[in-house]
């Protein structure tokens, strides 16, 4: 059974600081996704990582994938309040397969 674990589950940080969210998964997969969810809203796709060593950046967020370690990271640079949300990583096993989600990391950025 594919399992996906995130840490931390809760993260409170100050504006301007850097931090990293970690996503570990239990079985081989080359496809990892990061989503953002604002309170009461649906899931918004942030990044799709498709190969070992993949790195993608958008604004203050950068995601990377190490398939050998079965690890993805979401790095936040110089956090701002607008980044406050819950971030989910998810893994699938190939075309047409379900997404298995991590528990989510609830990020709060304080002024």
């Amino acid at each position, binding site marked *: 059974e594919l399992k996906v674990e995130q840490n931390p589950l809760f993260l409170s940080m100050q504006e301007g600081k850097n931090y990293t969210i970690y996503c570990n998964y239990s079985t081989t997969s080359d*496809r990892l*996704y990061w*989503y953002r969810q604002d309170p009461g*809203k*649906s*899931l*918004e*796709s942030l990044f*799709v990582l*498709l190969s070992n060593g993949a790195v993608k950046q958008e604004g203050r967020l950068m995601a990377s994938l190490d398939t050998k370690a079965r690890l993805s990271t979401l790095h936040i640079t110089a956090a701002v309040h607008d980044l406050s949300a819950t971030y*989910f990583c*998810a893994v*699938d096993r190939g*075309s*047409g*397969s*379900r*997404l*298995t*989600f991590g*528990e*989510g990391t609830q990020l709060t950025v304080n002024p």
Partner: protein
Amino acid sequence: GAGVSQSPSNKVTEKGKDVELRCDPISGHTALYWYRQSLGQGLEFLIYFQGNSAPDKSGLPSDRFSAERTGGSVSTLTIQRTQQEDSAVYLCASTPNPVGPYEQYFGPGTRLTVT
């Protein structure tokens, strides 16, 4: 363009009643997924459609849950004899086709409350 739409946005029902939840995927998307999100269980997969067929329905939690898709477009998730543990947000997602990889595009969800 239009995204995935779901209706109703909120549904309150009494225990034991049946409910139907509707999903309209993005036009042209052949793959459609149902998930549910609850406090205790996180985000759980329910069922996957490719066209009108469901190659993977292994996530449906009991035989009270069923889903269909007609015309390769709209899907309906039906929950019979609802129980309080069915309370959750039901999310629908679609992708252009299953041979991707494509990220799944999610709808706004239906919040189901069983009283």
